[in-house]
């Protein structure tokens, strides 16, 4: 109930922001002891940092320690130190490499599709003069949904017997497709669903880039009687590209981390055809209870994410300074 009230308080804040804030205003000026800027900065930053250190950094360090042991979360025996054995096991396992390949296919497939579609939609919307706001809002709906909702719903729509997709295919004269229970179509389905959910993300950012292209560039180009393709190739694309690349890298990191959609839609199956690295690490950790091995596996995945995130952040930084 308390939380319910907080929620309503939050919505009212949106309506009357200034009054709310000044209602909680401080005592008369000049009374409190003066804090130096430095102290104030430390005081303001350290609580947030403390939370991050305990909830993000410390667990990772713990995982790092566990990755050198044969610890299992279900056994009570103390863990033995095994050196780099877990890392060697993960890196030489053909299973892991197969999951890596699946992940690669999934990430490149989904991100490429999203980029092409998202940019295409953004381009089409940017050429409209009326109804842009409504169109954009409608297109954004899938992105705001929880992966649980998205996964469940597509599972229903892709059902081989009573799913609406097969029903539509049937009325067009095509045969039934076992979307989620055949090796190849399962991975394709996963890519399609992810694309459906995240195309709006690329679209949103591409649209932001497209609307930021200064009009005078186009005007200058049309004075020069430049062709439409020339304008697209030499004005639109170079102006939007940096922002689009940010969106693509962001999506790639997110797709690499993806777990919930796989869990709901296919649970990695049929066989292991849709098992991504994220899903495999979960199986090792929570079904096999091979905690040490899973930690090594996880640390290697974190390294991949750190490398990807570094690219992303450096590029972001370059863009901001440029």
């Amino acid at each position: 109930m308390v939380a319910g009230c907080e929620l309503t308080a939050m919505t009212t804040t949106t309506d009357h922001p200034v009054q709310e804030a000044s209602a909680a205003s401080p005592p008369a000026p000049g009374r409190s002891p003066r804090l130096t800027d430095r102290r104030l900065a430390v005081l303001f930053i350290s609580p947030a940092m403390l939370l991050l250190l305990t909830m993000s950094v410390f667990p990772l360090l713990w995982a790092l320690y566990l990755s050198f042991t044969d610890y299992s979360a279900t056994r009570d025996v103390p863990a033995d130190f095994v050196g780099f054995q877990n890392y060697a096991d993960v890196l030489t396992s053909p299973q892991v490499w197969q999951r890596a390949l699946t992940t690669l296919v999934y990430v490149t497939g989904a991100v490429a599709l999203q980029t092409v579609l998202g940019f295409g939609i953004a381009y089409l919307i940017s050429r409209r003069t009326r109804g842009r706001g409504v169109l954009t809002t409608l297109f954004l709906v899938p992105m705001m949904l929880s992966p649980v909702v998205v996964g469940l719903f597509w599972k229903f729509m892709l059902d081989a017997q009573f799913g609406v997709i097969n029903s539509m295919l049937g009325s067009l004269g095509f045969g039934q497709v076992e979307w989620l229970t055949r090796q190849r179509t399962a991975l394709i389905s996963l890519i399609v669903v992810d694309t459906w959910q995240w195309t709006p993300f690329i679209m949103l950012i591409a649209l932001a880039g497209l609307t930021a292209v200064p009009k005078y560039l186009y005007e200058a180009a049309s004075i020069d009687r430049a062709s439409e393709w020339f304008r697209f190739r030499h004005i639109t694309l170079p102006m939007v590209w940096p922002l689009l690349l940010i969106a693509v890298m962001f999506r790639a990191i997110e797709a690499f981390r993806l777990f919930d959609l796989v869990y709901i839609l296919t649970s990695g199956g049929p066989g292991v055809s849709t098992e991504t690295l994220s899903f495999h690490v979960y199986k090792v950790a929570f079904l096999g209870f091979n905690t040490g091995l899973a930690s090594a596996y996880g640390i290697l995945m974190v390294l991949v994410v750190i490398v990807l995130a570094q690219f992303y952040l450096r590029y972001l930084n370059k863009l901001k300074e440029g």
Partner: protein
Amino acid sequence: MAISIDEAVPGPATDDAPPERRRGGRGRMVVEVLLLTALAVAMLFPVLWMLETSIKENRDVYAVPAKFFGFEVTLDHYKDVFVAPGGGQSDLSGSFLNSVIVAAASTVLATVLGVPAAWAYSRFTLKAKKDQLFFILSTRFMPPVVVVIPIFLMYRALGLIDSKLGLVLIYAAFNVPFTIWMMKGFVDEVPAEYEDAAMLDGYTRLQAFYKFTLPLLVPGIAATAVFALIFSWNEFVFAIFLTSSQEVRTAPPAIAGLIGGTTVDWGLVAASAVVFALPVLVFAYLVRKHLVAGVTLGAVRR
């Protein structure tokens, strides 16, 4: 610090003149509008289908071929979401309440911790500030399935497994990086001169912050909090691994649990998905002006 671009979700556009008419321009426009309509239908169809399924009788839900129109409308599935078969509160409604509590509490915590930090990062020259900020954002990129392994062990040792507090803490930790990055953009937009002027009038720096800057930040704080709320509300991975009992379980794992059995009541799944998604869509609509910044974790600003 922030990349600036024009308003991302444009309002009713009145600004730009229609592109100059060429021969064949009209035909092309028609093609473009048709293409856009087809894409919009493809994107929205699953959402509409979910809405339809949630108000169909069970026999129509499983009808082959699928019934698009002409089915009987019923609100039974929505009743089932909130009311248990024998009367009284259903399990799902309890989970919804848990979701509200966990999402709200973690958002408040992330905001209280994140906003002052964002202000400090915006105003002061600090050692390796850029590195600190990048470090903060990269914690947000960690794969949840990996983080959950040590968190699970840590919570087990601390007795936080299957507790709302545990979920609140981990969600707050995931929202703090976002809050700091998003809010830093808003703080950057408030001129530091306001605070300087206040300090000339005898206020301390701290007073200048909460008397003059903070009131100006309230709309930004509200938008940031709404995003944090959406992230916590939609979160699934931590929820499913760190909680198990009905008293603690939030809505996403509860809804996902509906398909666990041998027969699946898809009407109920659809209705609960609609109930679950509706507040998110309303909130997202409220903060549509800040969507670009929100979904890129504050890295790209409008």
